[in-house]
């Protein structure tokens, strides 16, 4: 896998989502989801959902505590797919309707269950 690519090989076609849809936290993923239009969410969902299983199979070969950046990007696209899923599958709307106002609801930050390995310093250590 080339270390300078945004996504692992085999998933390059998803790179069109890389600039906007990759977010590292639940707060950012939710905020981005509710800022999208339903057609934008539908397009992302339709592209990503059939790929989820192959994404999981690919990523399962890597330890969660030392993911190359491209793998973390791919993981975060998959996590965004799960954030988007209820909007498409249930609400047919970017945000959940008839819910308490967005501003009144707090999502607390949590430490992620994965970490990214710094490939450049890892390569330097090996040389």
């Amino acid at each position: 896998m080339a270390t300078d690519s945004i996504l692992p090989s085999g998933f390059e076609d998803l790179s069109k989502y890389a600039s906007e849809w990759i977010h590292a936290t639940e707060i950012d993923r939710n905020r981005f989801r509710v800022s999208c239009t339903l057609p934008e969410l539908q397009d992302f969902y339709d592209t990503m959902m059939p790929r989820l299983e192959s994404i999981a199979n690919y990523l399962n070969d890597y330890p969660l505590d030392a993911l190359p950046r491209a793998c973390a990007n791919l993981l975060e696209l998959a996590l965004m797919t799960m954030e988007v899923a209820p909007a498409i599958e249930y609400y047919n709307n970017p945000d959940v309707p008839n819910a308490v106002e967005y501003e009144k609801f707090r999502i607390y930050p949590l430490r992620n269950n994965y970490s990214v390995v710094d490939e450049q310093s890892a390569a330097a250590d090996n040389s």
Partner: protein
Amino acid sequence: MSFDTDKRLFGEARLNHEQFPHLPTGPVSTVPYTSEDYLARERDAIFKRMWLLAGRTEKIPKKGDFFVKVIEVLNTSIIVVRGQDDRVRAFYNVCRHRGTNIATGSGNCKFFTCNFHGWVYDTAGRNRHIADESQFFDLDKSKLNLHEVNCDIWNGFIFVNFDEDPRETLLEQLAELAPQLNDFPFEEMQVAGHWGATLTANWKLFLDAFQEGYHVATVHSGTINEYYTGERNPYCRPSSVRLYDRNRGLTIPFNPKFQIHASEAFAIKTGVSLSQGEEGLKKEVPGINPEGDEYYSFDINAIFPNWLLDTSIGFFFIHEFWPIDATTTRWEATMYFPPPVNAGALISQNQSIALLRDAFREDIATSEGSQAGLMSGSLKEINFADSEITCRHLYEAVDQMVNGNWHGTRVSS
């Protein structure tokens, strides 16, 4: 006791009250949901006396780990800390000099230093240093340790009790709920989602929104309704109810005709899902589904006074309802999953996290509207259905505690 589940879910008989005939069925007063005087009595009779949830032990796994818990109804915050001797203790977050809070948030330390004048306490609460001590008059430092609060642990849940001489042990207060849940694998799980809101609603009214299924068909019509209702259980009645002293439990079944969506199919295959249906039932988990519901989804376990411990197959979640005043409540919800073993498990968990979080935003949307209606004074009484027996039970348990006629083992009329 045998349960004819189908009869419970759509018969006309009011089987929950038949099972618990000691609970009254008439209307209840709106006063306990609206009155500051009533909250003051709850403070004295309940919050100052009973074991209250402080947090989970996995939040402070290492010596010196601590977190601060704010308890508004008691006008205080406490420090919960794992001492250098590995013991978990709780202290008033109050410097013995002039009362300043000595810690905020969470962290790890060997000593707490007050940032006002630099008094120092160790993690066992002992006063270890008074700056410029010679300038005080007849101080005995050994008598100026942090004030300790009673602290006990059950199944990784840290409880505190502000009564200097608690009338009940923690296990007595938990009653039969403790043995039911003793073997549930709480310690195998960690926080995977944490949400909160402070709303204009009484703490009991707010809690009630999460301890009955009657609201599901309406409040959750846009989200999880179809997983829980359907022709077998159109009003999402509980398939069983348990009363354990002032605590209570109920089981919520799923709709066997539910059609899973793509994200749920992925989550079920890769890990675990809120809406895992019959796939979930293939796993054996101790402590859940006490009545053996064949379409079991999850149990709501209401732990008196103010929190819910909802257990299911492969995850659990907690709701805490902390009164700030009679009509303002801070709600905190935390969802727990096992640490993900790989990316697939992590992705699968996020399916439930997003859906449940959004469903909670629906749940809490009605509370402020209900409170506003009660505050108008136009309603003097509330009628609870048989399927809302848990709301009734909370009302009765609180009212009897407040009036000093708690009968010890059962809520009686």
